[in-house]
């Protein structure tokens, strides 16, 4: 998988997925999820690249796994789509066997099992978030390598490096839904501004007991920061 030793030096290993003789399929991203009391807010940019060409400028990286469980995908488009499809099938099967809605932790564990077992072949960084009756809103992060951990707020993708400072300083526990939405939109905007491989529109999803609300913030409606 890591065959491109000749590749451009400014891209870190986590951005490089594999190299064809001509084309390097690198899918860089900014993804984020925040817990609040009663649910979660998830957000992602919308850019998929093959090399320097943007293959899809309106990608939907927030993929439904179950009715109230979504995942944010970063890494190789092919790998994450295949993993998400497999986990969606397994979770649907499990939910029918249980005859009740599955737990977010179950979904995250299924992702973790697949990402850890095939860690040498895969390049996938996934954030699993949703709402269930037992523990309310939860965010689990499954980065490259197959670790799984629960976090109140999680960022991922190549653009995340630019917003760790913003997220650490601006996150407060017990934020409301509107505050979380504003926080996520601002963080993603800042990352998209600085990371060349993130861009397009900001896609947001709010998952709670009532269901899922989805929003799109177009390029000209993004929050503005500096006028320089």
């Amino acid at each position, binding site marked *: 998988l890591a065959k491109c030793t000749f590749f451009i030096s400014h891209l870190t290993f986590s951005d490089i997925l594999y190299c064809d003789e001509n084309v390097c399929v690198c899918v860089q991203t900014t993804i984020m999820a925040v817990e609040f009391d009663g649910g979660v807010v998830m957000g992602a940019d919308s850019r998929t690249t*093959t090399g320097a060409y943007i293959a899809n400028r309106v990608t939907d990286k927030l993929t439904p796994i179950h009715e109230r469980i979504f995942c944010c995908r970063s890494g190789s488009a092919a790998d994450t789509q295949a993993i998400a499809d497999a986990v969606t099938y397994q979770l649907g099967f499990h939910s029918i066997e249980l005859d009740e809605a599955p737990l977010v932790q179950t979904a995250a564990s299924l992702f973790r099992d697949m990402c850890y077992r095939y860690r040498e072949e895969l390049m996938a960084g996934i954030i699993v978030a949703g709402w269930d009756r037992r523990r309310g809103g939860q965010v689990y992060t499954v980065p490259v390598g197959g670790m799984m951990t629960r976090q109140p707020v999680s960022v991922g993708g190549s653009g995340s490096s630019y917003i760790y400072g913003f997220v650490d300083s601006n996150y407060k526990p017990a934020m409301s839904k509107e505050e979380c939405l504003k926080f996520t939109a601002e963080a993603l905007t800042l990352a998209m501004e600085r990371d060349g491989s993130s861009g397009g529109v900001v896609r947001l999803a709010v998952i709670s007991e009532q269901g899922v609300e989805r929003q799109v913030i177009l390029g000209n409606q993004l929050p503005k920061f500096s006028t320089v």
Partner: protein
Amino acid sequence: RRIMATVSVCKYYPGGFSFDNCKRNALLEADISKLGFSSPAARKTGTTICGVVYKDGVVLGADTRATEGMIVADKNCSKIHYISPNIYCCGAGTAADTEMTTQIISSNLELHSLSTGRLPRVATANRMLKQMLFRYQGYIGAALVLGGVDCNGPHLYSIYPHGSTDKLPYVTMGSGSLAAMAVFEDRYRPNMEEEEAKRLVRDAIAAGIFNDLGSGSNIDLCVITKGKVDYLRPHDVANKKGVRTGSYRYKHGTTGVLTKTVTPLNLEVVEESVQTMDTS
């Protein structure tokens, strides 16, 4: 023990794909260049293919040039492949891979359709293609534009060799995709009429043909609507072969003969063998 219920009769592949031949090929390729030979070039369709969703359905377009390295192997090859009566697929990348992949999925989809008793859906074809391409981890060099109309309306997908897919209103693939996408980004509107959509796809492929060395010759179009498919091959002969205005043939006696010497070669029969022809 969980048993996956499948409706299609696709062969079950135990244990994943064996990559032994790929390792052997890599070693051979490294050795061959030392010996001074070059490995045979796969015929690629350096290509422009595209698709657009319009008011009543989907328009797919493709050029018709197939290249082997820098030589044009086929001046008029067909890149729009049949998947099912309501679904067609354009293929870019390695010609053999796109041809065989689309034929395999077409065959499986027909069996699936007979089993369900329904017209196949584009999403089903998309799933089958992406799962097969992902299984082969990108070694099948097929980049596809899949389009069709089913009970849920018109759908258009782009499928990459590693198995990722995007569902979009307009897509381009192949070496000429940037030229074609430029035309689309300028002139695409949602819910176009059929004539406008055909003109748009024709212009996008033409942009690929005239600005990309790997694409050329004619423009094929495939218009899919609910209940009807127009396979227009060729829709536009963009590159007609020129007519020679003069002849380079010379009459006998144009060049004057100065001297003539005849030398008979004395050959003797060394060995004679007779092979009877089977006339039965």
